[in-house]
């Protein structure tokens, strides 16, 4: 008897089902708690799609209109639910269409399991029809990937994929399954993975470093917490709040950290970075201690590194060791999970308050309000501003909606002016800044949290990058609320042309279709708003609508998002006023 035969005999004796690789894949997903898949079929993945029909009661498949859309939707689903997103595509063009979506999930540390089909194993390497080396292509943008050529390897590969994607610093993984492996039968048995010797996401807690951190914190005079996506990922929202409230230390958040700390809290100072709030940017350079938690000192956050936080000692709490001392040299590194560290840190820190330090932030807030926020969110004349739209939505939803954004001025306005009150309520493309993310992401977010109001802010440029996903919204009647902030320009690029290229508007003005008619073509109710008096009523009408709804809002054509830490400038050299 060969080893293979022996293996099969024991499997049969143990009552393991004899099923195809395609069916095994679906059973693995069900065992991992999956109930929703985003994807797009094609030749190589047909065996899997065929089996999906037998599992419709357990697995819902959302057919997007482009594979990139499936990838973004799966990522958004993961960001709002905390469960990994699942995405299926066929080989060749189906797989390559995913690349932007995979890279986007990778830079923002979101767990998505990408399943791509591959040509029959005997044809690999021959440039067969619809064969691409997706392993090679996706290698730099996945946390891990692998190819399955034999059906019996599939359960272990899936188990590994889930384990790797969801633990440590999460990220996308990809499994490429040949068509023959989908058809071939195996004796099915599934065991979740919780250990790989070459991968150790559970780092023993560095209690010495935590003690040192507590001493540094207890002696600081102008400390500042920088909270990133890691707070949300590790589930440390409550711990962060407790830590901040006990120590009295003010909190600033990164773009992806938004919603991890309530915007109305007395210790909240705003959001960091190029278009972030004035106070936290400016005062980063006045702090004597920076406690960075679950963030990676991205260049959009730090501005000019040579002039970044020079008066501060820096404590970096971060699960990914490769991020520590990568951009900013830190004084104390704590290479551990954010939540665990905070839990151990809280008992060690002293109850304190920093009234005069916090007052400095409030003075900055006042300056920013006078110079920027007031005219942006409550203008009395002129065209509608993006900021005022966001403020209205924020007020109408009580800050409780899930906000999805595209990229550009719409994104920065949403991030700046929505008053987030609950965690996991911002879905945005941070690291990649992928235009076209917003529309498909709204599909994923609403699918993941059907009970929540999901409002997307999208620019007229980015909307047209994935506009076909209106078809998905129609198909599944997904009740998302889409706000197209139409300025007739690729606004953010136009702003840079205005500020740094002598107002030479090269290829940024758009000739746009009538978005209302487009939406109606997809049988989605839609309305256009051009006047301020119609704004609030139209927004309220949109929010009350039962199904999906699109509101096109004509906003100021040449509005700039301010403040701005200009490229090459230090965080303390914030531009508040800009007159072209």
């Amino acid at each position, binding site marked *: 008897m060969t080893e293979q035969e022996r293996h099969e005999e024991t499997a049969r004796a143990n009552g393991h089902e004899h099923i195809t690789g395609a069916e095994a894949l679906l059973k693995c997903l069900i065992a991992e708690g999956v109930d929703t898949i985003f994807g797009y079929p094609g030749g190589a993945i047909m065996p899997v799609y065929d089996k999906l029909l037998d599992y419709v009661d357990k697995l819902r498949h959302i057919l997007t209109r482009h594979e990139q859309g499936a990838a973004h939707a799966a990522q958004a689903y993961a960001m709002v*639910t*905390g*469960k*990994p997103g699942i995405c299926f595509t066929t080989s060749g063009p189906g797989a390559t269409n995913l690349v932007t979506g995979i890279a986007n999930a990778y830079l923002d540390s979101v*767990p998505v399991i990408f399943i791509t089909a591959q040509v029959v194993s005997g044809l690999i390497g021959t440039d067969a029809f619809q064969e691409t080396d997706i*392993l*090679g292509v996706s*290698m*730099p943008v996945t*946390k*891990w*990937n692998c*190819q399955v050529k034999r059906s019996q390897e599939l359960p272990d590969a899936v188990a590994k994929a889930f*384990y*790797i*994607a*969801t*633990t440590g610093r*999460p990220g996308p993984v990809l499994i490429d399954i040949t068509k023959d492996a989908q058809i071939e039968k195996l004796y099915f048995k599934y065991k979740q993975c*919780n*250990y*790989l*010797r*070459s*991968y*150790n*996401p*559970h780092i*023993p807690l560095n209690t010495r470093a935590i003690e040192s951190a507590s001493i540094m914190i207890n002696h600081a005079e102008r400390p500042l917490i920088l909270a990133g996506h890691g707070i949300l*990922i*590790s*589930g440390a929202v409550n711990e962060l709040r407790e830590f901040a409230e006990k120590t009295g230390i003010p909190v600033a958040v990164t773009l992806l950290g938004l919603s991890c700390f309530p915007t109305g809290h007395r210790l909240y100072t705003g959001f960091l970075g190029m278009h972030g709030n004035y106070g936290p940017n400016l005062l980063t350079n006045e702090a004597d201690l920076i406690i960075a938690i679950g963030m990676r000192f991205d260049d959009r956050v730090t501005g000019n590194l040579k002039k970044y936080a020079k008066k501060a000692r820096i404590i970096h709490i971060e699960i*990914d*060791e*490769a991020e*520590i*001392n*990568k951009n900013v040299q830190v004084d104390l590194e704590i290479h551990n*999970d954010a939540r665990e560290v905070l839990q151990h840190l809280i008992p060690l820190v002293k109850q304190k308050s920093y009234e005069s330090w916090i007052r400095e932030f409030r003075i900055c807030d006042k300056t920013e309000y006078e110079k920027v926020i007031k005219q942006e969110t409550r203008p009395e004349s002129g065209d509608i501003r993006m900021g005022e739209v966001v403020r209205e939505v924020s007020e109408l939803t009580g800050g409780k909606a899930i906000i999805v954004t595209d990229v550009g001025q719409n994104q920065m306005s949403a991030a700046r002016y929505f008053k987030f009150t609950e965690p996991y309520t911002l879905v945005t493309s941070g690291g990649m800044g992928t235009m076209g993310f917003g529309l498909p992401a709204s599909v994923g977010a609403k699918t993941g949290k059907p009970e929540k109001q999901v409002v997307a802010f999208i620019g007229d440029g980015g909307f047209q990058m994935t506009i076909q996903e209106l078809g998905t919204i129609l198909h599944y009647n997904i009740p998302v609320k889409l706000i197209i902030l139409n300025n007739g320009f690729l606004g953010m690029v136009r702003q840079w042309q205005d500020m740094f290229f002598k107002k030479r508007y090269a290829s940024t003005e758009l000739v746009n279709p009538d978005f209302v008619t487009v939406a109606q073509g997809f049988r989605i109710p839609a309305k256009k708003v051009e006047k301020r008096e119609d704004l609030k009523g139209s927004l309220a009408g949109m929010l009350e609508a039962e199904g999906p709804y699109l509101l096109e809002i004509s906003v100021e054509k040449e509005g700039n998002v301010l403040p701005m830490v200009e490229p090459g400038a230090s965080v303390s050299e914030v531009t508040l006023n800009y007159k072209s």
Partner: protein
Amino acid sequence: MKQEFTISLFSENHIGILNQITIILTRRQINIESITASESAVKGVHLLTLVVKTTPDMVRKIARQMEKLVEVLKVFVHTSDEIIYQEIALYKVTTKGLMSGNVIDHIVRTHYARILEVSPEYIVIEKTGHKTEITELLAQLEPYGLLQFVRSGRVAITRQVKELVSYLRELDEAHRVKPEEVETYNRN
């Protein structure tokens, strides 16, 4: 200041690992001076020895990025004085040129090289040593009609006592203590 570092990387025998390593180096525009890949002393564990010239700060960053790769077990970075290392080179020289007098014996002896094969047309000489020594011998042989020359990448052994095996044991033990504490992204 740039200096020479030897990176010893232990990994699972996973297809594509070399590709992942070179991606990290390419992104940072770091040239690989030499590379050797083979099975290590631990069964199933592969050893990659890379020599790169870069700054201490950069080598630390790339080592962390390499260690972050899922299939990589452990990465050690050493400066040249922390390791014992060798390269091997083979030289093929025309017999005609070398056979005159005692030239060949002399060269082989003074360079601690050895002769592997002699034929009427050529002689093959082998030498192990550091890069400079290998290059010196090359210069010596060149005038006699060098037909072919190949040199290997670096192989290195550390002077430190702690070995990969003990790291593996630690990893396995850490796992045994806390199997149920594996954190997951699931909050619900």
